[in-house]
């Protein structure tokens, strides 16, 4: 492994940039994700930075059930994220559709549209759980580096 690619991988683990996408959820998870970024919980300690565009991101944090109209957009956003990319689902309805299962305009969880690496269940999961999920995801990112 060349020194440049080792440097890139090292920086990816030390400072993953994330993109947040809500595909039609109730906002609860999104507020908790933001709460994880603000002073009490502060995931920027781990070098995590919220970015505005998928092209800058390493990790997509997705929440909410996939609605009919957002499905194509979610796929497009996933395609725009450069490889290697990771998807973390926050919340139960992103994992399975939860309370919205059976609604005519919901297609199920995030994994009905794009592959998912990590699920954080809860309705909504508290920021502590989100941080736990992020740390475990980073271990996975790091594991892929060595492997």
């Amino acid at each position: 492994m060349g020194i440049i690619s080792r440097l890139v991988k090292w920086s990816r683990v030390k400072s993953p940039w994330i993109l947040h996408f809500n595909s039609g959820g109730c906002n609860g998870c999104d507020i908790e994700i933001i709460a994880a970024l603000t002073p009490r919980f502060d995931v920027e300690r781990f070098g995590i930075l919220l970015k505005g565009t998928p092209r800058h991101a390493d990790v997509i944090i997705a929440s909410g059930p996939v609605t009919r109209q957002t499905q194509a957009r979610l796929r497009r956003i996933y395609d725009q994220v450069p490889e290697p990319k990771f998807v973390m689902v926050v919340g139960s309805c992103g994992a399975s559709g939860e309370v919205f299962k059976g609604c005519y305009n919901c297609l199920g969880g995030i994994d009905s549209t794009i592959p998912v690496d990590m699920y954080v269940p809860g309705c909504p999961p508290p920021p502590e759980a989100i941080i736990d999920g992020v740390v475990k995801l980073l271990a996975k990112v790091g594991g892929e580096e060595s492997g």
Partner: protein
Amino acid sequence: MDNQMERETEVGETWAREEEIVRDLRSVLGEKLLEAEIPTKRRVFVKVAEGAHREAISMLVDSGVWHLSTISGVDTGDGFEVVYHIFDHNRGVEVNIKSPVPRDNPEIQTITDLIPGSSIYEREIMDLLGIRFPGHPNPRRVILPEDWPPDQYPLRKDWKPEQLTKASRRYAEIPTKPGQVILQVGPQHPALKEPINFEVVVEGEVVVDFIPHIEYNHRGVEKAFEERTYLQGIYLAERICGICGHSHTTVFVEAVEQLADVRAPPRGRFIRTIVAEMERIHSHILWLGVAMHLIGWDTMLMYSWRDREVIMDLLELVSGNRVNYAMNTLGGVRRDIRNDQIHKIRKGLDILEKRTLEYRDICLKEDTLMKRALGVGIVKPELAKKMCAVGPLIRSSGVKTDVRYDDPSVGCYEELSGHWSVVTSDLCDIVGRVLVRVDEVLESIKMLRWMLDNLPNGPIREKVPKKIPEGEAVARYEAPRGEVIHYIRSNGTDKPDRVKVRAPTWGNYSAIFESMKGLYIADIPINFGSIDPCMACASRTTFVDVSHSKPKKWTWTMEQLVEYGIRWYENRGYKR
């Protein structure tokens, strides 16, 4: 406040004001008034003959009524029924006018000329039930996805999700004049909230027209209510919105309690209101941070979100969860508040009060906010009334209206009246909306202290039968963002026949989009943010310059749009 007291004593138990409205309607409609019913205080249900709804509504409008809460469409099996929910502020009564619509020719005359704010509600019924409104100025699709087939209507009882086919349908082209540009905003947002898309027609820097596409977040909750029992419905109602979920469950359970003729015991109603006011504090502080982020003042975002954790801890203490508290249940609440918890809540409120006073001070003196927001996004009281705006938006236009004050039938607001005041502001702009919200936090703290002092003893819930008798009920409540209203029609089983939900943001859209016209592009984020949109905002901004023969396109994210706004102001001498 005196006004309120007078009304209370005058009405008594005779329901004089409700009967007066029925008398007035009967004098205008005569034979065309088919049924009139006063199921409870502050509610009137009338059924009018086909086509007579306009006469009834124009009579109400002539007598000074301006607020249309929402319009519900109901499939009754052999026909449809359209229900107009109109609130009479002078008499404090919600008038529900039902008008039948035949199934073979579903048409009913529009009321957009009488109440312009009805436009968005009529379009919603067009989408979901396929009822046409002849005379509607803009009968476009509003809530169903773009690939939804044009002849399928999900809220009709004979429609099943299996029937759904895909149609390839794109948005209609927006006609533009030379020199005008269409700006695409949305649907993905880097920081917050839900997907939505706007098409903004601009001329240079100035917004000419504002067309929202809000169907991204449409999940089909109203249909889902019909397939769930009332008890399951509470959990669904909680998840309509992750910020004001408690308000949705409050109106849902209050409406079902009206139908079952059960009233929650006093302690239950107090605890319900305590959680609701705590939710308001958390929501307003949250909004303060987000709004300041939108004008590039991230210091304030971090400060306010740090202090928001105080109220989040209290909510977790009371309910066991930070969001989606699951406190409400049919006939009361699920958890009691213990004395040691009350002690902790009081301590938390002291911290919050101190911090909120400081925010108010900072906001009033800080140039960062004043130079960006003073005089921006003006919503005059006439416009707010015309467009049936709700919540802090209309109160910041100087109109004194608050469901907790006008219609205190929910929770323990009847006991609370006199112990708080409605906050208004005459500024009509974004600074006004900031001040109204900050002052409302202080009012909520005052109300919470009073409720904790006067918390009655006794049981917290009443038993409610599984099967709810046939009937219909309307419950309204002032959620943090404004009036939320649920209309429930039951059919004698354990599942509702129809649940109509109107969230406050839906009511504020018309007014705020009207106020966008004439603004600069740089002011779009903060002006839209100023209504505290519940399904919100934007990221990918595509600019299409149609003034050239070959249209030019480029894309911005919301972040870049916010940055552009900050830079635009800096170049004009407004320093951060």
